[in-house]
């Protein structure tokens, strides 16, 4: 200011200079806000597109087509000797009962080939459904009931409109003859769409109408539970030691660099490591939640450690001094004061790590989780698969009905991921403290 005056320039008040530049500054600010807002809108748009696509493809999977059949539980077919022994009931030819029912509805179908096509309209699982009914209530033998039977996946697709009835017959999986039968059944009210409980209660299957995600869900549950059990204590302990107790020297620097590197290692590498070490050396049974959890723990540990260290760093040193000042030991200082304050941050990091683990596929392919496992896993060491791998497997299947099941499984996985991330946010809100 002195210089300006000395140079003889007309005295200009600061406020004038500021006012002159103000318009430009505000314009810059508006542009920046607009850019930010459009970035957010673009992001949301793609998320909405993704969701619309998945939901649009998948929502029909939550319904399943059933066909009503008059079933005569013929004693001469089920139990010709009248012993009612469980073994006899178990072995009886229930498929014959279904064929019998179909003959009743379509008495005009005599041709051998047509009969077979007719039989294929009903899911192959229906015979065992009838068997279960009879075993549960042997008094059914000798009676005639109208029974809702699961339709085959092709019929299901046709009823749901995924097969274009106006397309030329040769391009269709379901031929004109079958379409005619289905239309007749529909007009008689013998076709109904119900909520697809099988999808949530069954393991996977080669038959789309019998395939469910229960096995994968349980597998994911066991795997995540173990992963949490392994990685949370180890991760928090490692972070606590590195941040609060370890001397700061070249070794701890090296460890820190390595942890940060591990967080960026492609997950499939952890799968290879798990295959070589856990399965190869330690002989952990393959394709079990146990080995999957070990691999996923390795993968999530860096995330948890980094988040936990950041949480510990954010606890003000004055709290540590206060505790040490009244004579708390270093461990007491950590456990009583620092850890509770850092816990929300640690939990958030852990949940984000768990969400990562829940959605992880690649390393699990390496350790045999890709095996086709129909049974719902009953424990940590029973063979199983997990949700993302199940999605991967179904996405690979040629049947049209698996397309909607894939999308439905993705919806379930997304629901769990959103739930977990929401929990992380809520936890942070709930425990956020000021000091």
């Amino acid at each position: 200011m002195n210089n300006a005056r000395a140079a003889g320039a007309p005295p200009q008040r600061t406020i004038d200079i500021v006012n002159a530049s103000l318009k430009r500054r505000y314009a810059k600010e508006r542009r920046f806000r607009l850019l930010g807002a459009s970035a957010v809108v673009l992001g949301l748009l793609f998320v909405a597109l993704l969701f619309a696509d998945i939901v649009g493809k998948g929502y029909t999977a939550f319904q399943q087509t059933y066909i009503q059949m008059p079933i005569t539980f013929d004693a001469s077919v089920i139990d010709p000797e009248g012993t009612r022994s469980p073994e006899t009931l178990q072995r009886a030819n229930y498929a014959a009962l279904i064929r019998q029912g179909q003959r009743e509805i379509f008495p005009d179908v005599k041709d051998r080939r047509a009969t077979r096509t007719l039989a294929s309209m009903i899911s192959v699982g229906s015979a065992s459904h009838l068997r279960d009914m009879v075993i549960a209530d042997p008094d059914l033998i000798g009676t005639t009931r109208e029974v809702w039977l699961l339709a085959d996946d092709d019929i299901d697709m046709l009823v749901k409109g995924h097969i274009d009835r106006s397309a030329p017959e040769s391009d269709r999986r379901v031929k004109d003859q079958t379409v005619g039968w289905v239309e007749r059944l529909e007009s008689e009210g013998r076709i109904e769409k119900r909520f697809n409980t099988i999808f949530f209660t069954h393991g996977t299957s080669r038959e789309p109408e019998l395939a469910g995600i229960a096995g994968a869900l349980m597998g994911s549950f066991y795997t995540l539970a173990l992963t949490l059990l392994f990685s949370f204590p180890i991760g928090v302990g490692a972070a606590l030691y590195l941040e609060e107790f370890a001397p700061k020297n070249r070794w701890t620097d090296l460890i820190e660099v390595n942890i940060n590197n591990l967080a960026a290692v492609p997950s499939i590498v952890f799968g290879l490591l798990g295959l070589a070490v856990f399965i190869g050396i330690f002989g952990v049974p393959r394709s079990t939640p146990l080995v999957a959890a070990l691999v996923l723990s390795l993968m999530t540990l860096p995330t948890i450690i980094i988040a936990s260290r950041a949480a510990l760093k954010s606890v003000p040193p004055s709290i540590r001094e206060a505790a040490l000042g009244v004579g708390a030991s270093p461990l007491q200082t950590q456990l009583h004061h620092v850890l509770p304050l850092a816990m929300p941050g640690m939990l958030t990091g852990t949940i984000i790590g768990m969400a990562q683990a829940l959605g992880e596929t690649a390393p699990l392919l390496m350790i045999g989780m890709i095996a086709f496992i129909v049974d719902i896993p009953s424990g940590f060491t029973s063979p199983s698969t997990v949700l993302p791998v199940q999605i991967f497997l179904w996405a690979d299947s040629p049947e049209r009905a698996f397309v909607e099941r894939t999308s439905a499984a993705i919806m379930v996985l997304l629901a769990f991921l959103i739930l977990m991330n929401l929990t992380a946010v809520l936890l942070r809100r709930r425990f956020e403290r000021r000091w």
Partner: protein
Amino acid sequence: MSTTVDEMSRRTGAMSSAELAGERESRATVGDVTVANPRMVCRGVDVWYGAKQAIKGVSLDIGKNEVVSMIGPSGCGKSTFLRCLNRMNDTIDGCRVTGSIQLDGRDIYDKGLDPVPLRAQVGMVFQKPNPFPKSIYENVAYGPRIHGLTNNKAELDELVSASLQKAGLWNEVKDRLDQPGTGLSGGQQQRLCIARTIAVSPEVILMDEPCSALDPIATAIIEELIDELRANYSIAIVTHSMQQAARVSQRTAYFHLGDLIEVGETNQIFTNPKHRLTEDYITGRFG
């Protein structure tokens, strides 16, 4: 002239203003560092932060039932010295302490001595009030609880209320002991920290600029409190305010660039300083 010296000393830090002024005066401590009945005895204490020496051969006694104030310009090492007295410097990486500091005749830097019980004997109040983010009751009860000073809940309640009373906070908080200590005003928080410190019945209380974050009214209350606490405790207080040092302490130590320049009766230091640096500081010529 004096401004130049002042600026230079601030800029260079390591060199004393006296040297820059061309005067080679002694930096040995002037005045008697000993007292008749010492609680803590420090002899030839050196402190290094890495390669930098922060305290140079300081000797000082802290007597029973007295308040010793430590004054000096920023960075003179008074806080560093204070933090040696309960080994709080242990938590700082690269900090090294040599010399001897004794509490009741025992060297507190002895290899076999555990700093944890030491800190129960030598309590500390910090510059910024730092109550735990817990209830008022828990703040005061924490020390006695971890040291097992009380046998049951009734005794603990008694101790908490006695400590709060001694800290002059009881009447203000007795109806809301379960509320967070962080919800109190700054002055109340600092008194809560004092209550927390005296709840473990230390022998010495170290105060590191306890009033620098407080307004004059809260400061007055705390100064009054310090005067009352003198009856039972030895107190060492670091302060930036010479008026405060004059008001609360019996003896005053003037630090300058890591040296203890002068020690003496507070009256004598403020009315008749013997060392030129002390005189410059208290007359406001620098610092």
